[in-house]
């Protein structure tokens, strides 16, 4: 978990940005696979928050809200007709560029990022945000069985890709 999740400092936007921008950005990145889209999605999530001020009943609720909206924005971003139409050429296949130094060091990360978006998202929420399958279902709006199958397929695909690099039980 993000180490700041238990801070509950304040509804000051600056603190919220400090607390959630990375988590939101990473979800968006895990889904879209590129940093420009991730930054746009991050901004949209916080803009939506502006209209939401004062309505969180708890820090857990607050965090859950940010994760859920990050997932929603990522999904709608990816799906929009506009997006499909005008995806800028330089945005395609630029996955590596934000971590160009790590390419060779982190085959697992690379392998995860090469999975289909929904599988990536489930892997990210499960392994990075440490959410349970139930929580992933609540956050993403996918049924639990779908989440399970995404995770199962992701694992199978990763085993394929990483065979030789790692010993798989």
């Amino acid at each position, binding site marked *: 978990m993000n180490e700041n999740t238990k801070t509950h*400092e304040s509804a000051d936007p600056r603190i919220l940005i400090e607390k959630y*921008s*990375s988590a939101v*950005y990473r979800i968006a990145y895990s889904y879209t696979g590129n940093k420009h889209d991730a930054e746009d999605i991050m901004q949209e999530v916080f803009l939506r928050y502006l209209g939401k001020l004062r309505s969180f009943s708890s820090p857990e609720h607050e965090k859950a809200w940010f994760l859920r909206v990050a997932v929603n924005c990522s999904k709608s971003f990816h799906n929009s007709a506009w997006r499909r*139409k005008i995806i800028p050429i330089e945005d395609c296949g630029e996955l590596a*560029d934000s971590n160009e130094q790590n390419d060779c060091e982190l085959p697992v990360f690379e392998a995860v990022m090469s999975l289909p978006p929904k599988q990536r998202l489930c892997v990210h929420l499960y*392994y990075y945000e440490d959410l349970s399958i139930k929580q992933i279902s609540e956050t993403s709006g996918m049924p639990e069985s779908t989440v399970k199958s995404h995770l199962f397929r992701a694992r199978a695909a990763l085993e394929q890709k990483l065979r030789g690099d790692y010993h798989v039980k």
Partner: protein
Amino acid sequence: MLNEDWKKEYKTGMDRVSPSRESIDNLLNVMTSKASARNISPRTLRRLMPFAACFLLVAALAIPLSKQISGGRSVPLASGTGGQVAAPYVDLSGAAPASEDKFSAATAPASTPSSEISSPATRTSLSPSETASSDKGDYSELYNVMSKLQSKGTVRAYTSAGAESANKAPSAPASDSAASQGYSDTNIQVAGVQESDIVKTDGKYIYSLAGEKLSIVKAENGALAMASQIPISVKDSSGRQSSGAFEMYVSGDRLIVLRNSYEYHIMAAEPESSNDSRVIAPSIWPPRSKSFVSADIYDISDRTSPKLLNSFSQDGSFVSSRMIDGVLYLLSNKGVYGEIVRERPDTFVPQVYCGAEASLISQKDISVGIDPEKSGGSAQYLIVAGIDTSGNGKLVSNKAVLGYGSQIYSSRTNLYVTSYSGITEGSTYTGATKLHRFSLNSGNISLEAEGTVPGSVLNQFSMDEHAGCFRIVTTVYSYTVSVGGTDKSAWSSVSQSRQYNSLYTLDSNLKIKGKIEDLAPGERVYSARFIGDTAYFVTFRQVDPLFAADLSDPANPRILSALKIPGFSQYLHPYSDGLLFGLGHDADADSGKAGYLKLSMFDISDPKNVKELSKLVIDGTYYSEASYNHKAVLADAAKNIIAFPADGKYLIYSYSREQGFKREASISAGSSMKYGYNMRGLYIGDVFYVVSAEGISSYAVKGYSQISKISF
């Protein structure tokens, strides 16, 4: 599923993925300026286009209807894919949606008197000819400024502009601690300057705003009886949606409810005029609404039957408010969006509304500063109105200033408003806080001075006025970005970043007189409080230094002491002579990771040697509204009560030098108020009342045994 090695490696990879400093900075600007559209990236504006598409659909349904009613012209609609360029607004709320109509009724939207109570204000709107003839010429200068600013977008270069100067020195003592004769008031910063809240009392009645309902409850020695309930209307006849009443004031026989409302707009699309689908007119933000802030004034001389007397509104979104001797000062930010038309001042001049009657703020009351384009201006206004709430209510004066408001501080005679803007010098980014000082005199507002200090302001407690001197504590963050690579695969990284804290003293012209800079590098301000000639403030990264600074010579402020203890305070409250109460969190001294809620009592009798006399860490409790909203705190030394909501309970403590903090009561908040949001405590005589969104319960101050309760 994945084995541990994989998991670790994925985490390591993902940890390296983080948003660029620039995008965070941009976000910060947007968030702290609340609605500074100019800072939103063009990419995000494009992202909002699907919203525009939705509203075009709404338009498609709505326009034939309004056509029938008013004969307004429909507007060609773009088909399909979320429109390329969106241009002028069409207003759905009024009766005349046609964008070509000069001064349609839409320019004078009615405010929202609740339905069963009639408003004395006439429901006639500004007549087209009247406005057009009287005001057309007056605003031409403003039109020129606005059109330049609009085309310019964010201006990041920042120069200090001392616009209008005045030699009037601020007077008024700025001492604190709320008056406590018999009953407790909202926890305010400056004596005699009221702050709005969700719960109020006048010693006989308790007023509570919860949901869409305002309840007035008679409280007599713990017995509770409902006097009346007022529904806060959600929608008015002209379609203005009320997005909720949020806070209120009680002043004698007047009750003032503050509320936001908004109108839907739709945008008409222009045919695609450019091959470059990335070019978006600046007019698409916001995609759907125009917002207003309103103050409804009720006559409550008969508590069982409140009557709505009047309703004042102004354009924009709520910034803050204060009330001094029955005069309400209401602040809002209004962005100028959409196409502006010289002949239609309502497209670029902010408006105020008395009841349903709209009027444009006159040119003489709008200040654009010396060089708006260079002074960090963008196409938005800060609006300040002074409303006398006695009698039937009267708008005394209003002012608009180019810019926006973020945090405000008010003494009894001066109102200070801050706004933050980024500064770019080459590849170095930092920011500054712009200050406006308005003098306040029974509702008459005048802009007296403008100034600027480096860094950003945490909240109202970071500011103070004392003996003609304005003092402010800020956190400065600056960083340098290195850029490399080619156009197609550019990279950027933050090569140098610096964060530190500063204290400034300013004269009445808002010129810096004295300063202490470079305090606590790497940390930021978590709380501040000024007590007479001494400033106390807390910065934090791993341990909490509580600084005490001597400001008795404003030209030479100096640090007296810095007390380092684990954890940090997020709110500081002068408790009694020589004592300062701090509410915050405990923290791990090595990692700086924040822990449970913590109460501290500091001995400040010798500012050169501040000591933590006592502390209490509330095990298992992380969260309290009190850590960011001072109004949730009740701290009263005379009654020896320190109380606040936390994690679904209302906690009451006492303090003594011998025993330290002692828990007197822990009152459960009820099921639907699981997290203790929107709970307030107050006392009247020897009875303590806990008010939540569900109801009120009363307790004897001695022993806190329950006397009675009532549900809303």
